[in-house]
C-alpha cells in the first residue's frame, strides 16, 4: 500500500467517522463540546481569510459574530423572519460593515490595522451594551437577548443537539471548501502575493487593497453566519459573551497557534485548544479561574517563537513520518513474505 493510498483511507475514515458520530455518541454534553469545537473551527477558518492570507491581524472579528446574531434574532422577534433567512441577512450586513471598515483600515500598516480593528470591535461592544433600543428594535443593552422558544426547523431551533451538530459540521466543511477553492484560484494567489510582497504584486497587476477588502467581505459574511448559529444554539446571548476583545482574541489566538494561512491550521488549533478550555473550565474554574487563558497565552508565545507557522507544521511532518513508517513496514512485510 502506498503512502498516498493510506493517506486517502485515513481521511475517508475520518470524514465518515465525524459524520456518523452522533449515531453512537449521544451524550448531549459531549455533543455540545464538539459543536462548540466545530463552531470555533469555523470561526477561525473564516478569520484565516483575512488574518492568514491578507497578511494582517484582525482583532475585532467578534463584532461580526455579534452583528450576525443580533440581526437575525431581532428580525425574528420583530418580523417573525425565519432565522435561516435572518442568517443570510446578518451575514450580508456583517459583510457590508466589514467592507466599510476594511476600506480605510486595510491600507494601514499591520500594527495600526490591528489597533483599528480592536477599536472597532470594542466600539461595537460598547455601543450595544449601552443601547436598549435601536429605533424599533430591542437590543437590551448588557442584558442581552433571549431567543423566544419556538421549536421548529423553520425557526432554526431543535430540541436535540444532533441537528445543530450536522449544521455546524456542514458549515465548517463549506468554509474549508471556500478556503481551499480560493487557494487554487486567482484570488488566493493574489491575496498571498499581496500579503507577502505588496509592491511586487502591484507591479504584476494586483490591486492589493481591493483583494484584501474582498477577503474581508467574504470573511465577515461567513463570520456573521456563525453569529446566527450561536444565537440559535444557545438561545441566549449578551454583549460580553459574543462581542468584545476577549472573544476576538480567542479566535485570533487559536488560528495563530494552529497556523495562519494554511487550510488545516485553524481547525487543528481549535481541535487542540478548545478541549483545553472546556476541561479547564469544568475541572478548575473554581480553583484556578482563567487557567485556559494562561495556557493559551503560554502556548501562543512558545509557538510564535519556535514555530511561527503554527503547530500544523510539525504536526504535518509528524503525520507524514508516521505514514512513511507504516507504509514502509507494510511494504517490508509484504516483501518478506
Amino acid at each position, binding site marked *: 500500500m502506498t503512502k498516498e493510498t493510506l493517506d486517502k483511507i485515513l481521511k475517508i475514515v475520518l470524514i465518515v467517522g465525524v459524520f456518523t458520530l452522533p449515531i453512537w455518541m449521544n451524550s448531549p454534553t459531549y455533543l455540545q463540546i464538539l459543536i462548540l469545537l466545530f463552531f470555533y473551527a469555523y470561526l477561525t477558518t473564516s478569520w484565516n481569510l483575512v488574518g492568514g492570507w491578507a497578511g494582517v491581524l484582525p482583532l475585532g472579528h467578534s463584532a461580526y459574530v455579534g452583528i450576525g446574531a443580533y440581526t437575525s434574532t431581532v428580525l425574528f422577534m420583530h418580523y417573525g423572519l425565519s432565522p435561516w433567512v435572518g442568517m443570510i441577512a446578518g451575514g450580508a450586513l456583517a459583510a457590508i460593515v466589514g467592507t466599510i471598515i476594511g476600506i480605510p483600515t486595510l491600507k494601514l500598516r499591520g500594527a495600526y490595522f490591528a489597533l483599528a480593528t480592536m477599536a472597532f470591535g470594542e466600539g461595537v461592544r460598547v455601543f450595544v451594551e449601552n443601547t436598549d433600543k435601536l429605533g424599533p428594535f430591542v437590543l437590551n443593552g448588557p442584558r442581552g437577548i433571549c431567543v423566544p422558544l419556538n421549536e421548529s426547523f423553520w425557526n432554526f431551533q431543535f430540541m436535540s443537539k444532533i441537528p445543530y451538530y450536522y449544521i455546524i459540521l456542514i458549515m465548517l466543511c463549506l468554509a474549508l471548501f471556500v478556503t481551499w477553492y480560493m487557494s487554487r484560484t486567482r484570488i488566493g494567489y493574489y491575496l498571498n*502575493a499581496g500579503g507577502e*510582497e505588496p*509592491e*511586487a504584486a*502591484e*507591479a504584476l*497587476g*494586483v*490591486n492589493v487593497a481591493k483583494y484584501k477588502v474582498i477577503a474581508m467581505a467574504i470573511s465577515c459574511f461567513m463570520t456573521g453566519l456563525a453569529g446566527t448559529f450561536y444565537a440559535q444554539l444557545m438561545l441566549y446571548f449578551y454583549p460580553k459573551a459574543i462581542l468584545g476583545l476577549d472573544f476576538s482574541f480567542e479566535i485570533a489566538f487559536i488560528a495563530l497557534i494552529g497556523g495562519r494561512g494554511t487550510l488545516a491550521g485553524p481547525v487543528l488549533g481549535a481541535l487542540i485548544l478548545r478541549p483545553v478550555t472546556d476541561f479547564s473550565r469544568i475541572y478548575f474554574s473554581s480553583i484556578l479561574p482563567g487557567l485556559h487563558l494562561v495556557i493559551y497565552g503560554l502556548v501562543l508565545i512558545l509557538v510564535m517563537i519556535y514555530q511561527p507557522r503554527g503547530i500544523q507544521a510539525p504536526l504535518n511532518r509528524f503525520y507524514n513520518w508516521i505514514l512513511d513508517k507504516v507504509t514502509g513496514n507494510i511494504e517490508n512485510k509484504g516483501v518478506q513474505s
Partner: protein
Amino acid sequence: MALLEIKNVSKHFGGLKAVDQVDLSIEKGQIFGLIGPNGAGKSTLFNCVAGLYAPTYGQVFFKGNEITGMKPWDVCNMRIARTFQLVKPFKMKTVLYNTMVGAYIRSTNPAEVRDMALDVLERLHLADKKDLLAKSLTIADRKRLELARAMATNPEMLLLDECMAGLRPNEVDEILDIVRGIRDGGVTIFVIEHIMRAIMALSDRIAVIHFGEKIVEGTPKEVSTDERVIKAYLGDGYVATGN
C-alpha cells in the same frame, strides 16, 4: 508613433527635483538604455512611468494613451511590466507559484495559467527549478525569476531596473542573452543599468540622466564619446581635449 512617450516629466520631492523636465521617446522593438551617476533620478523616472509615483509635472503616453499617474496594477494591465532593483520574490512560495501570479493577469483558469507560467519558465531556463521555494534560490536565479514573473504578464514593454547588479560576469552574459531573446520576441525594453559594457552592448539608444535632467541622448557610440557624459561620470579632469 513612439510606443512610450515621456513628455516633460518632472518629479519633485519637496524642494528636491529628482527628475527635471525629461523628454524621452521609445520606439517599438527598441532596447532603450538609461544611465547616469548614482542618485541621478533614473529609478525615480522609472517609477513615474510604472505608477509607483505620479509625476509632479508632465505626461506619460503609452501607445498614444495617457498613463500619467496610473496605479501600478493598471499600468501592468496596459501591458507594461517592470522588475525591481532589489528583487522581491514571494519567498515562501515556489518558483512556479511566483510565476503564476504574474500569469493570472491573462486568464483566470488555473490550468491555463499554470501552462503559461511553465512556458515562461522554459524560455528563461528556470523550468527545472519550478518546485523550489524562492527563498532557496541564488541571487542570479532570483533575478531570473523576477524577469520570469514580469514576462508571465505577457507585456508589450518591459522596464528593467538594474537587473544585473551583483551578478558575476558570466551571469551577466546569460541575462544579456535572455534580454535580447525577449526583445526578439517582440517586447520593447527600457532598461536602467550601471554595468557599462552590458548596457552599451545591449541598447539601441541610450539616454544619460544627471541631477534629474537628461543631458545626452543617442546611440551607445555617440553617448560614450560625449564630453558631457564623461564630465558627469568622472569629473572635469577626464575630458580629453582635442580628439
